C-alpha cells in the first residue's frame, strides 16, 4: 500500500502540530490532504509547487486510496479528500449525518491505460473484449488475436477508486449488471505492482492510470468502444476530446464550501499554473473552469 506521507512545512512550529484543528491557524496555515493513490503523485507535486506560491501554507499529502480519503473527510480529519471516483450517495449521507457537506471539484482527468508486455503481439481491444477477458469468458490470448497462452489478469485491490471505475465502465460496460471480476484475477496492492508484473510477465494484462505507465517498458493498447468504433490510444488529446473511451475525472472534496487558504489552494490547482503540473505528471488537464 502506498502510504507516502510528505509533510511539506516551512519548519514553522505550527505546521506539524497535531493539536491544530484542520484548517487555519494563526500565521502558518496547514492543509491536510488525503486519499486516492492515483492522485497522490500529482497532489504531492501541487503541494510542493504551492510552497513557492504561498510559503505560509503547508500541505500534508497522504495516499491510502479514495475510500480512505473520503472516510477521513466524513470523520472530519482532513481538509481536502482526493478521490479517483465520485462520492457514493451513502457516503454523502453519512457525511451529512456528521454535519459535513462535501463539495466536489474536478481537478484533473485520468485516462486508464490498458497495458500488456511489449512482446505481446496484441495491439488493440474493444471494451466488450476487455469485459469478456476480465470476467473470465475469454481466457486465452489466441481468442483476441494473440499467442496461445493463458491470460493473466491484473487488477488493483477492490478498495481502489480505479478498481471501482474499471468495474463499472469496463467489466460492466457502463450498464447495470451483476458481472464481477473473474476469481483468478490477481489483486495488486499498488499501481506499481501492476506495472512491474506486466513488465516481467508476457501473458499479463493490467490497467493503470496514464500517469503511471511508461511506454518504453509496457505496451499500451488502443481501445475502441465496440468493434464498429475507431480505436484510440490514451493520450492527453484523446482523453480531453473524449474519444478515448476509458477516461474519468479525478476529484477533490472539501468539507463545505472552501474558504481562506483551502479556497486559494483549490483555485490555484485549477488555474493554468496548477494544470501545467497535471500535464507534467502524465494526467490530462481540465478545461479552464470559471
Amino acid at each position, binding site marked *: 500500500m502506498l502510504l507516502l506521507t510528505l509533510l511539506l512545512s516551512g519548519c514553522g512550529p505550527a505546521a506539524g502540530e497535531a493539536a491544530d484543528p484542520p484548517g487555519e491557524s494563526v500565521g502558518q496555515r496547514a492543509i491536510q490532504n488525503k486519499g486516492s493513490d492515483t492522485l497522490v503523485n500529482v497532489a504531492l507535486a501541487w503541494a510542493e509547487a504551492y510552497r513557492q506560491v504561498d510559503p505560509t501554507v503547508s500541505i500534508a499529502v497522504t495516499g*491510502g486510496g479514495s*475510500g480512505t480519503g473520503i472516510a477521513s473527510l466524513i470523520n472530519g480529519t482532513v481538509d481536502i479528500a482526493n478521490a479517483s471516483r465520485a462520492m457514493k450517495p451513502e457516503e454523502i449521507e453519512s457525511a451529512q449525518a456528521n454535519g459535513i457537506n462535501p463539495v466536489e471539484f474536478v481537478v484533473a482527468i485520468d485516462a486508464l491505460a490498458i497495458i500488456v508486455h511489449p512482446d505481446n503481439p496484441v495491439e488493440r481491444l474493444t471494451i466488450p473484449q476487455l469485459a469478456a477477458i476480465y470476467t473470465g469468458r475469454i481466457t486465452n490470448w489466441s481468442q483476441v488475436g494473440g499467442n496461445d497462452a493463458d491470460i493473466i489478469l491484473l487488477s488493483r485491490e477492490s478498495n481502489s477508486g480505479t478498481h*471501482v471505475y474499471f468495474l463499472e465502465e469496463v467489466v460492466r460496460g457502463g450498464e447495470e449488471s451483476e458481472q464481477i471480476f473473474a476469481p483468478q484475477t490477481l*489483486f495488486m496492492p499498488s499501481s506499481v505492482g501492476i506495472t512491474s*508484473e506486466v513488465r516481467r510477465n508476457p501473458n499479463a494484462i493490467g490497467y493503470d492510470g496514464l500517469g503511471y505507465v511508461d511506454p518504453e517498458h509496457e505496451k499500451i493498447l488502443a481501445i475502441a468502444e465496440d468493434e464498429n468504433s475507431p480505436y484510440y490510444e490514451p493520450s492527453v488529446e484523446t482523453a480531453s476530446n473524449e474519444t478515448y473511451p476509458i477516461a474519468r475525472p479525478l476529484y477533490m472534496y472539501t468539507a463545505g464550501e472552501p474558504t481562506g487558504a483551502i479556497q486559494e489552494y483549490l483555485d490555484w490547482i485549477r488555474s493554468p499554473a496548477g494544470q501545467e503540473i497535471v500535464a507534467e505528471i502524465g494526467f490530462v488537464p481540465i478545461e479552464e473552469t470559471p
Partner: protein
Amino acid sequence: MTTVERTNGGQRWQQRKEWLIEALIRVSGISAIALIALIFIFLLREALPAFGQLGASDFTNSRWYPIEDKFGLAPLIFGTLLVTIGALIMAVPVGLTTAVYLGEFAPTWQREILKPLIEILAGIPSIVLGFLGWIALAPIVQRLGASTGLTAFTGSFILAYMALPTMISIAEDALYAVPREYRDGALAIGATRWQTTWRVVLPAARSGIVTAIMLGVGRAIGETMAVMMVTGNAANIPALAPDIFFQPVRTMTATIAAEMGEVAQGSLHYNVLFTVGIVLFVITFAINSIAASVVGRSKPRPRASL
C-alpha cells in the same frame, strides 16, 4: 535467613511475603488466559453484527468480493492452508535436519558460527523478505514454468525461510535438553551415533520438536505483509492438480491487511473482516490444541528401543 532471625514476627512477615509473591505469580499466569479471552470477546463483538445480516450460505459462497457483498470465506481459508502447508513441507525437513546436525553432529567451532547466523536470520524483517520474494524469487518461479511468479509456492518459500530460525533454535534446545545419560547409555550398549540420534534422542525430545514445528506453523499462518506481496492475492480456489501450489491465492491475513484500512467502521464488510479474524484465531487455536494433545500423549515417554 538464619534460624536466629526466625522469630514469631519474622515468620509472619515471611508468610505474608510469600503469599504476595504467590499472588503475583498467579495473576501473571492467569493474565495470559484473560488476554486471550479478551481478544476473543473483542473479535466476537466486532464480528457478531455480520452473523445477524448474513447466513451460513453467504459465508460458504465460493466468491470473495466484498464491494458486491460476496463474503465467501472458502477461497481465503484455502489460500491460508495451502501457503502454510507448502511452507511446512519445505521448512520441517530442513529445520529438523539442521537442528539435529547442530545438536548432535556439528563440531563446536561450526556450532559457534552457525547458531548466531541462524539468529540473525530470525531478525530479518518480514517486509524485507517479502520484497526479496517479489523482485528475486517471483521471476524465478515464473521462469520455472508457472503462469505468473506470484503464487502460493512463492509465499510458502518465503514463509519457510521465515519459520526456519524459530524451528531450528527450539528444536535444537529440545535436543540439548535430552540428558547426556541417554546418549551414553545407547552408545554403551553398542548403538551407532546415528541409531542413538534416531531412536533415542529424537523420541526423547519429541515434545520440544512438536513445539518447534507448531511455533513455525504459527509464524507461517500469521504472516501478512510478505505473503501479500508475493501470492498474487487472487481469491480463487485452484483446481486440485499437480500445479496447485503454482497458482495465485489470497490468504486471510493479506485480506484483512489490504481491506481493513479502507472499510467504513461499523459496515458489514468491517464486521466480516473480524469474522475472518475469528476464523484465523480458531484455526491457530485448533492446531495448537492438537499439538498439545500429541505432546501430552507421549508421556510417559516410550522406552527407547534399539
